[in-house]
């Protein structure tokens, strides 16, 4: 126990290691795999994300032009973002905030959207 005393005393003169979350939030690191977002205007509803997703949390309906996503089943691996041919999917560096009730996200776009080619 006595060997620990210098550490304890040392800690008295250093700032605390914790912060008053959620009042005080640390700035996120770059390229962190946080909340998954879809720019539905760019989405072509090709279903590549739904097919490759290891946790199968994405469902796409090409005819109805809908993209639905269950954030509670998502494992934040970023595979969908990597393979999205239209580059409509991206992950924000911030994590999704906790909610009281389970909900899924349903986005509706225009049918027949094509990949915009940048000149």
């Amino acid at each position, binding site marked *: 126990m*006595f*060997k*620990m005393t210098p*550490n304890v005393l040392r800690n008295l003169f250093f700032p605390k290691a914790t912060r008053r979350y959620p009042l005080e939030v640390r700035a996120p690191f770059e390229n962190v795999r946080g909340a998954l977002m879809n720019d539905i205007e760019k989405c072509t509803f090709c279903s590549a994300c739904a097919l490759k997703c*290891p946790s199968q949390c994405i469902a796409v309906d090409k005819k109805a032009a809908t993209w639905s996503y269950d954030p509670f089943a998502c494992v934040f691996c970023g595979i969908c973002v990597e393979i999205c041919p239209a580059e409509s999917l991206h992950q924000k560096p911030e994590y999704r905030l906790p909610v009281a009730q389970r909900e899924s996200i349903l986005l509706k776009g225009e049918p027949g959207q094509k990949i915009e080619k940048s000149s």
Partner: protein
Amino acid sequence: MLKTVIPFGPQHPVLPEPLHLKLTVEDEVITEAIPALGFVHRGLEMLANIRDFKQMTQVVERVCGICSMIHAMCYCQGIEAIMGIEVPRRATFLRTIWSELNRMHSHLLWLGLFADSFGFESLFMQLWKIREKVLDLNEATAGNRIIVSVNVIGGVRRDLAPEQISWMLAELAEVEQEINRLGSTLLTDYTVKKRTAGKGVITKDKAFELGLAGPTLRASGVCQDMRMLGYAAFDQLDFEPVVETGGDCYARSKVRFREVLQSIDLIRQALSRIDQSEIRTKVKGRPQGETVCRVEQPRGELFYYIKADGTKNLERLRIRTPTFANIPALLSILPGMWLSDVPVAVLSIDPCISCTER
């Protein structure tokens, strides 16, 4: 003397995961320990028949939260061996760096829990404070804190920028300094030694006979570490396994403590020898054949058997985790121990029940 059976777990303050032990006690001394497993069985091996072989990389990462990166690395190495894919040199170094970061945070987590098991709360908090820095390193470089999702068949998904490398080296120097500061408490403190030294001794012969793995085996004086096989970039780093001869709970904690420092050294070596090249090879086709892959997890030898039949799903995936090998050690040391020493003894083998039950 009247025998009493005391259930230990599956929910117990000292246990991070659900292990159930039926302890037969005479007075305060254990005479028999019978384990019961199966509380977190998820049938992950059978998912290999449902998910395709590329998706399985993310599935096997979730066999165990703490050693997730090493599970995925082992799986990818197995598939790469079947398909004859050569991983770029830079990717092997990056895998080594992240696997050692994984080992560091796992050992720091364990050292904290171990301190907590004998009631040393402030040491537990100090160790977890250091672990937070390692998790920051993971988050900044790989994108996630624990389940880093960097492995992919054929290489890795993230690269390190030069400024990230210099930042990592600076952070590692700080982590090393802080760990060394706690070293005297963990290894020489009277209270810590009183609770750990001489408790749960496994001799070298007994450890070999029981077929133990990892730090539990090395603490009994057996020099066996899968990193000696030279997978990933370990064949290009100066590596000598950490071995202690005491065989008791104190020796096991000493091995893990020294391994944290060794991991820092290995990461430094890997960062200094890493060269510029591709990080990922393109994978074409489907695997056909079978292979066995072994790597060193923080808890010991991890073994994967993969059998593929040329379809997108694997025919069989078998995972043998180190805790499965180390449970016999626990059962052999518990009889004769005092009931108050059970938490220390149980934690000394670093049980990872999620791994064991998959």
